[in-house]
């Protein structure tokens, strides 16, 4: 019996699949023929599942929405249908009934109504809780505070509304890699407007942010190293409440991640000096969208140097700059030299793992010194450098000692081998002489 039943399982599944496919397959032409008679006369099987998709799947953009596209939409997956947003009656194939204003149908040609429509659910905690209790419901309130929201309220319909960033009819959750607001895709989504010089012409703001961002250390971390927590546009500007951080708030934005640098900068002389001159904190040295990996060359006088853009050669600050730069360079060189010596010792089979471990502390000191630069106090930076130098010099010495030890071993081996050869020759002569 079991065998017989098993044989019927695939057959049953095939029948069920065919039935399901039949129910999902869009067949507008046939459906329209069936829809022509009055609704009461139509057989129960002809009642459409979703008359909107049956028709709109064969329409061109911007009215075309296929079943395949809509099935990707998180709203569709959660059981919402076209009428959930557009109203109307999706059980009728009669356009005048299906899209009847009397049945609440709306077309959203007025872009200003879109945030309100989305917000009617997404701003309602009670409603949203049934889908995801953790989901925020302040998007609309935030949007009203954004540059986009304020301009829309003022009548500028070119600005972004919900569907410009989240797309429409195939809205995916931000965790979906195909979503337009997935961390890796956010910069591209923003750039669709902000890199379009013609579109942005009236706003008189630069359109090179995306190009600059693509050269930045943040982009490198995000795209090349797959760090999805790395900053993208919305990390600094906000998403629904998107706005420029403002000159006086830049360091607060950077401080979200770069905590220690911000704490030191807060207490530094530069904080007041920049504020007095209306300079945007961190951006003065590091720029904004095109932030490159900082290097010690930023302290130098070459093309990457930033200090001498403001300071005069030979002044108190320039002398401090030289001390810091030399100290960092010295520590970096010492760590590299110790690394090289230890590697040589390791390649010779010497056990230097303790010194190797200590090298991490020396590197930590170098990193700490580079962070302490934001205090702009040479003495504090030199403290960190001195701590690192002490460790690096000790490690270098450990490497050198290991190499001396290796040479001693080889000399000892040479003497031993010589002694063994002498003994072997002695044995050989003894055996030969004694005819053993």
């Amino acid at each position: 019996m079991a065998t017989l039943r098993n044989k019927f399982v695939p057959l049953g599944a095939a029948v069920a699949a065919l039935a399901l496919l039949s129910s999902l397959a869009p067949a507008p032409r046939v459906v329209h023929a069936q829809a022509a008679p009055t609704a009461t006369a139509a057989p129960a099987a002809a009642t459409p599942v979703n008359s909107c998709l049956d028709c709109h799947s064969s329409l061109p953009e911007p009215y075309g929405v296929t079943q395949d596209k809509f099935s990707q939409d998180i709203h569709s997956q959660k059981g919402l249908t076209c009428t959930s947003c557009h109203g109307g009656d999706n059980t009728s194939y009669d356009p005048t009934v299906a899209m009847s204003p009397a049945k609440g149908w709306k077309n959203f040609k007025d872009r200003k109504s879109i945030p309100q429509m989305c917000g009617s659910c997404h701003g309602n905690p009670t409603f949203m809780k049934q889908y995801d209790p953790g989901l925020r419901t302040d998007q609309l309130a935030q949007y009203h505070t954004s540059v986009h929201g304020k301009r829309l309220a003022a009548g500028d319909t070119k600005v972004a509304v919900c569907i410009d960033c989240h797309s429409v009819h195939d809205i995916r959750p931000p965790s979906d890699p195909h979503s337009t607001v997935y961390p890796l895709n956010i910069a591209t989504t923003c750039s669709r407007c902000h890199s379009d010089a013609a579109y942005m012409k009236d706003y008189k703001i630069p359109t090179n942010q995306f190009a600059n961002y693509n050269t930045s250390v943040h982009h490198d971390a995000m795209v090349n190293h797959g760090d999805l927590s790395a900053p993208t546009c919305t990390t600094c500007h906000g998403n629904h409440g998107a706005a420029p951080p403002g000159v006086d708030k830049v360091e607060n934005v950077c401080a979200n991640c770069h905590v220690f640098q911000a704490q030191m900068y807060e207490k530094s002389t530069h904080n007041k000096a920049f504020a007095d001159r209306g300079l945007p904190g961190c951006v003065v040295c590091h720029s904004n969208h095109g932030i490159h990996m900082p290097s010690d060359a930023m302290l130098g006088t070459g093309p990457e140097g930033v200090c001498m853009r403001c300071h005069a050669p030979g002044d108190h600050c320039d002398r401090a700059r030289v001390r810091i730069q030399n100290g960092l360079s010295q520590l970096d060189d010492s760590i590299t030299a110790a690394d090289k010596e230890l590697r040589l010792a390791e390649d010779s089979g010497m056990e230097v793992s303790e010194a190797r471990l200590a090298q991490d502390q020396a590197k930590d000191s170098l990193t700490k010194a580079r962070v302490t630069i934001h205090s702009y106090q040479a003495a504090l930076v030199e403290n960190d450098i001195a701590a690192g130098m002490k460790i690096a010099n000790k490690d270098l010495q450990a490497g050198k000692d290991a190499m001396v030890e290796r040479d001693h071993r080889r000399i000892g081996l040479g003497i031993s081998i010589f002694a063994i050869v002498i003994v072997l020759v002695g044995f050989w002569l003894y055996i030969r002489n004694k005819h053993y």
Partner: protein
Amino acid sequence: MSVFTAIYRWIDDRLHLDDILEFLRHKVVPIHSLSYWYFFGGMTLLLFIIQVITGILLLLYYHAGASEAFESVQYIMTQVQFGWLIRSIHSWSANLMILTAFAHMFSVVFLKAYRKPREMTWVSGMLLLFLVMGFGFSGYLLPWNTLAFFATKVGTEMAGQVPIVGHPLMVFLRGGDEVTGATLTRFFGFHVAVLPGIVTVLIAIHLFLVLRQGMSVPPKVELEWEAHPESRKEMRFFPNFALRETMAWYVVIGILGALAAIFPWNLGVKADPFISAPAGIKPEWYFLFMFQTLKLIPSKVWFIDGEVLGILGCSLVALLWTLLPFFEGDKPSNTKRWITGVSIFALFYMIGMTIYGYLAK
């Protein structure tokens, strides 16, 4: 009368040393074109003695325990005077001992020295080879580094595949279901107490049999000597052969010292049971041919699990190999050629699989 002569006389009065020396004076070693293969047994014995001495020295500082084993070996290598040399010699000597044991075994096979009346010598030698590999397996874990940890995990898992007794055996070896500090303590016990005790007894039996029965000669040489007794060549064991063996020992000590000084044995990174196994992890070279064989067997052969089949197959081959003398002809004139063929195949298979195992990813 010198002091030494007086002491000798004193001992001789009680133990009759002259009888033993008389036995040694009359003991002879055959001379033929393949006599140099006789040295490998002695070399293996020398390396075992070195293992015992260096092992005892390591015991002075080694601590068996998951939290201190690695650190104690690190201490031996960095802080203890000549600790690096002792540990490196111990590790290199272990590997050379297995190498010379294999060379000794194959020399015995190809010279057909296992034939009657030396069946017991062969069986005791094979048991010694298995125990020496057991030394290698148990000693490998003792530094408690990453490679050792995962090699032990894989090795004991393989033991666990044996039908019926596999799981209890694995739990017995590990001291639980996982490789932990309990496994290390157990392996330490096997390595320094259980195995040395058994091996010492077996070596004594093996040497007694060799001394009692004398050295075998290849069948061809034996037949020739039987036909032409005047062509028989022999040398005295003492001092002639002993002097030559001593020379071989000196060469081994030289090689061992050179390896230990130029390529000190790496300590690796301390084992962390919570990390995943390093990619492409492989056992020590002497287990590699078996490991590679098991890898090549499909996961299912008919209805039998591939790994189980492989382990049972290897065990069966090892058993048949141990019983090799019992398949051989009694007389030098009727030795089995197929055994030589199988032996050549076995040698090339082991070498080939070992190289393949090294090159395979």
